[in-house]
């Protein structure tokens, strides 16, 4: 049945890039699109049909990796060259945005003209990550590409904005429902009935043009002597149309057809042999063909008529009917389906039928066998969903299933039930335990069980903050694990390393992380290697070995490149940015920050969101641009999550330092108060960075000392002793520099020069000069004094300290002192909530796109770089930035960024 009025709208002169077909089930969405693209039409193909990539989504596509693979496969049916790179990126577990960007480039260049991508049944998608990727696709759609989204619910896209800008064409229920004329054509011509105008009008009114209902009505009337009577009783009834009509249709079927329909309703897809297994009869295939011929809502899923599914609406009616009429049979039907799928080696389908049929024993067995493979492919979520559906009493006798449940829970961030599960495993691990009572289906997972339990115990102890127990359990895991069990050895070593790090034993922590990296590399768990490399590099740089830290990070990048792994690489670049800043290499640092940014947050581990912002802020500070640094630091504080690493450098302390540098001592004092810090605190490695920050604040507050002022020099002395005892040269250098500055502030030039000389000598071998360079130009006179050999006991000006002082002084004019360049911090901290919601202060609020641009303006990308990032031309970018300046009443980029920060955008 052709619908020229709708196809005409779709094929209008210049249709926009996004077409949304949004209506409930049974409104002919798919049929209309098929007609438009010519697949179901006899009247010649619409030009659009020539290049249409069609993807019908189902629940299994609700996973980013599966979804984008399916999109690429669909595109390749019409544009074979498209998506080759995207496929490779998918295999390397790259973030969705990278994959979409690659696809967009391919489509813009290689797809030629007029390519349409149809995503049908988009309402099955619930993954926020997929929605974000599709939103990105919509925002960057090239002119030659059209995207069609069809589904029963509106997708979470900025539809209002797209409507306002004319970038959206919508076909909704009101458009799709049959008009009276269409109803007549459908019933009398397509379905072969002979109804008068009165009946047609009555049916149209009763069904409100709902096509599925009309279809059911037509089926009910076929072969009836008196269709008018049927119409009269239907129109005079106020039962839900589907309920009324499905009953009519079902009642008119022979008993064996009716039974077949009800009993196979539990299947999400049907094929002859499967139907035979479920119904316990034969002739399933013939029955399916018969149903298809009778137009009984059977949809073929392949050209060879092997697999079918019921029309969704009809399937729901059938299932509800089955549940009402033969509830005792439902579990049995699912059980037969589960057995069939298990035999067919389709564990996912088998498990979902076993669970639906409450055959938990079978489900438990299948899950135990299937789950390890899911962990390997990072589909822990599916495993967790399955396991959560099993009753608790099933676990005590199943040690392997139990440990899988512990893993599925802990990997996805939970603790619920873990202790109970581990307690249930314990008896089976006792020496001489009688394992004959245990139910084990996956024998291969039994041998490593003791080591795995110890690893989880160590992780639990760490979460509970018990470092001694963490080490004890992890060491036990190392004893229990087989020599070639690299995975558990690597996990256990990393846990010992982390506990030692938190306890301040840096030498032992470094050794353990090095072991862990070796084992995890052998096990092929590259992202975990990268996480450990970050920790190792942090420790090495704390121990004053920046060169080793940089080597560790670069080795991590090499390894990731070799294995094609992305997750963790953004972190490595951000860490390299900071390591190079410590060496006062701002250009090198900027390159790594760009690399981290290009990879995106999706290529980062849990710490990355705050760490790259810290790195970016520090880079701005190194250029004296405090106004750009502070918003980033605010964001870093909000995202501060060390992912179990010791909080040795809280983002709030880094922000307090920036406040101090900008002269906002009040903000720094608030931080010190909120953090409960004081100069008389007991010292510990974990709080060292905060204490040094506090010393900076005290020095700024009391430069002259004396009177009631806290004794900064005594505090620094204690810090110095602790840092030297703990062998932390970076901290030693910084404390010495602060001691020198304190002496200088009090007019003790000779002591000051001696301290700075000591600092430079300590910094020398590893070029830990960043902390000195940061104090320029105010420290320049003191540097000159050291260079001139004024330091006590260094009469000729020839020591390492003097050389380094000269080097620093000749490194070009000092960057503008942070104190002059920094703007005052925003008077009002940005409120919570989305940027768009915050724009009450603006007459003309920024659009979502302009907010995107604003975000980039905060960074240090050039115009062409930003244009590339946004996939727009430079001219388009200029239009955006000009509109932002106008709306924010700013003259330039810097003013715009500052104004946005004030508004909390």
């Amino acid at each position, binding site marked *: 049945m052709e619908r020229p009025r709708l196809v005409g709208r779709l094929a209008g002169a210049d249709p926009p890039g996004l077409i949304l077909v949004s209506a409930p089930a049974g409104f002919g969405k798919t049929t209309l699109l098929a007609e438009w693209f010519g697949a179901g039409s006899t009247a010649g193909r619409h030009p659009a049909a020539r290049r249409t990539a069609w993807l019908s989504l189902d629940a299994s596509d609700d996973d980013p990796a599966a979804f984008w693979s399916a999109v690429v496969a669909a595109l390749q049916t019409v544009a074979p060259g498209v998506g080759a790179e995207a496929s490779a990126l998918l295999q390397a577990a790259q973030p969705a945005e990278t994959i979409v960007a690659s696809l967009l480039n391919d489509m813009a260049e290689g797809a030629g003209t007029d390519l349409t991508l149809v995503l049908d049944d988009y309402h099955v998608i619930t993954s926020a990550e997929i929605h974000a990727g599709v939103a990105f696709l919509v925002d960057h759609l090239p002119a030659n590409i059209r995207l069609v989204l069809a589904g029963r619910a509106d997708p979470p896209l900025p539809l209002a904005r797209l409507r306002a800008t004319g970038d959206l064409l919508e076909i909704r229920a009101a458009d799709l429902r049959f008009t009276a004329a269409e109803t007549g054509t459908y019933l009398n011509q397509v379905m072969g009935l002979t109804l008068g105008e009165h009946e047609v009008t009555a049916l149209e009114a009763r069904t409100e043009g709902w096509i599925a209902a009309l279809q059911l009505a037509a089926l009910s009337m076929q072969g009836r002597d008196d269709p008018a009577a049927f119409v009269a009783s239907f129109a005079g009834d106020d039962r839900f149309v589907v309920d009324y009509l499905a009953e009519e249709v079902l009642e008119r079927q022979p008993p064996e057809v009716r039974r077949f329909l009800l009993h196979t309703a539990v299947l999400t897809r049907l094929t002859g042999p499967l139907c035979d297994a479920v119904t316990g009869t034969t002739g399933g295939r013939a029955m399916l063909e018969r149903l298809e011929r009778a137009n009984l809502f059977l949809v073929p899923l392949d050209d060879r008529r092997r697999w079918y599914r019921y029309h969704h609406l009809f399937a729901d009616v059938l299932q509800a009917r089955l549940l009402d009429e033969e509830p005792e049979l439902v579990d049995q039907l699912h059980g037969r389906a589960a057995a069939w799928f298990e035999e067919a080696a389709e564990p996912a389908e088998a498990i979902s039928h076993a669970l639906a049929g409450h055959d938990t024993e079978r489900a438990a067995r299948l899950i135990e066998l299937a789950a390890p493979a899911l962990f390997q492919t990072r589909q822990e979520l599916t495993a967790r969903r399955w396991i959560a559906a099993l009753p608790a009493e099933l676990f005590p006798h199943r040690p392997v299933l139990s440990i899988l449940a512990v893993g599925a829970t802990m990997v996805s961030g939970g603790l619920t039930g873990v202790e109970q599960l581990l307690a249930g495993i314990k008896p089976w691990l006792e020496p001489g335990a009688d394992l004959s009572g245990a139910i084990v289906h996956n024998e291969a997972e039994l041998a490593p069980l003791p080591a795995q339990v110890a690893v989880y115990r160590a992780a639990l102890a760490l979460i509970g903050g018990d470092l001694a127990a963490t080490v004890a359990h992890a060491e036990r895991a190392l004893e229990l694990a087989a020599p070639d069990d690299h995975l558990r050895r690597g996990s256990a070593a990393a846990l010992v*390393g982390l506990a030692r790090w938190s306890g301040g034993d840096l030498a032992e922590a470094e050794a353990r992380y090095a072991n862990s990296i070796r084992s995890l590399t052998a096990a092929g768990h590259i992202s975990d290697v990268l996480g450990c490399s970050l920790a190792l590099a942090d420790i090495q740089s704390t121990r004053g070995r920046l060169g080793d830290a940089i080597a560790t990070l670069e080795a991590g990048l090499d390894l990731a490149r070799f294995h094609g792994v992305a997750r963790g690489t953004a972190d490595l670049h951000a860490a390299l940015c900071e390591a190079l800043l410590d060496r006062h290499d701002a250009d090198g640092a900027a390159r790594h920050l760009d690399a981290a940014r290009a990879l995106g947050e999706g290529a980062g581990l849990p710490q990355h969101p705050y760490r790259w912002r810290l790195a970016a802020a520090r880079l701005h500070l190194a250029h004296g641009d405090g106004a750009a640094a502070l918003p980033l630091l605010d964001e870093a504080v909000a995202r501060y999550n060390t992912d179990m690493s010791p909080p040795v450098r809280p983002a709030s302390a880094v922000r307090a330092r920036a406040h101090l540098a900008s002269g906002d001592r009040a903000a720094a004092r608030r931080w010190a108060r909120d953090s409960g810090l004081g100069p008389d605190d007991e010292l510990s490695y974990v709080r060292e960075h905060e204490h040094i920050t506090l010393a900076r604040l005290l020095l700024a507050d009391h430069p002259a000392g004396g009177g009631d002022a806290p004794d900064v020099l005594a505090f620094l002395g204690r810090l110095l002793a602790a840092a030297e005892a703990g062998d932390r040269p970076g901290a030693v250098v910084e404390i010495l520099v602060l001691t020198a500055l304190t002496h200088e502030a009090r007019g003790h030039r000779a002591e000051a020069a001696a301290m700075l000389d000591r600092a430079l000598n300590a910094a020398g071998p590893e070029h830990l000069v960043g902390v000195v360079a940061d104090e320029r130009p105010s420290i320049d006179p003191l540097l000159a004094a050291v260079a001139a050999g004024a330091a006590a006991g260094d009469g000729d000006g020839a020591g390492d300290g003097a050389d380094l002082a000269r080097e620093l002084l000749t490194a070009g004019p000092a960057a503008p002192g942070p104190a002059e360049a920094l703007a005052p911090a925003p008077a009002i901290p940005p409120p919570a909530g989305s940027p768009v919601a915050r724009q009450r202060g603006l007459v003309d609020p920024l659009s979502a796109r302009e907010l995107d641009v604003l975000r980039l303006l905060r960074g240090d990308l050039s115009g062409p770089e930003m244009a590339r990032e946004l996939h727009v031309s430079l001219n388009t970018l200029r239009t955006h930035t000009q509109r932002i300046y106008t709306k924010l009443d700013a003259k330039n980029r810097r003013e715009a960024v500052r104004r946005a920060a004030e508004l909390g955008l």
Partner: protein
Amino acid sequence: MVTTAHQIRSYGPNVSQSHHDYEIRVAGRLAPRWSAWFDGLTVAPGDDGTTVLHGPVPDQAALHGLLRKLRDLGLPLISLTQKEDH
């Protein structure tokens, strides 16, 4: 499966929810036999051409599951009310 310290996330509080009674009104008269399909809610067709589904719903996820079933059947939703605790 691997658990390194760097994979363990921080843990939020458990969201505990007691179940509530809900009343969902839809357009069209629906036979009471649909009760089993709608997770055992009582299906009460009215004289005004609407149907009320009512009963306890364990949590928000279950409520959204019910709404999705209504949507998939094409049943027009009229109102949704949480009833006072009894």
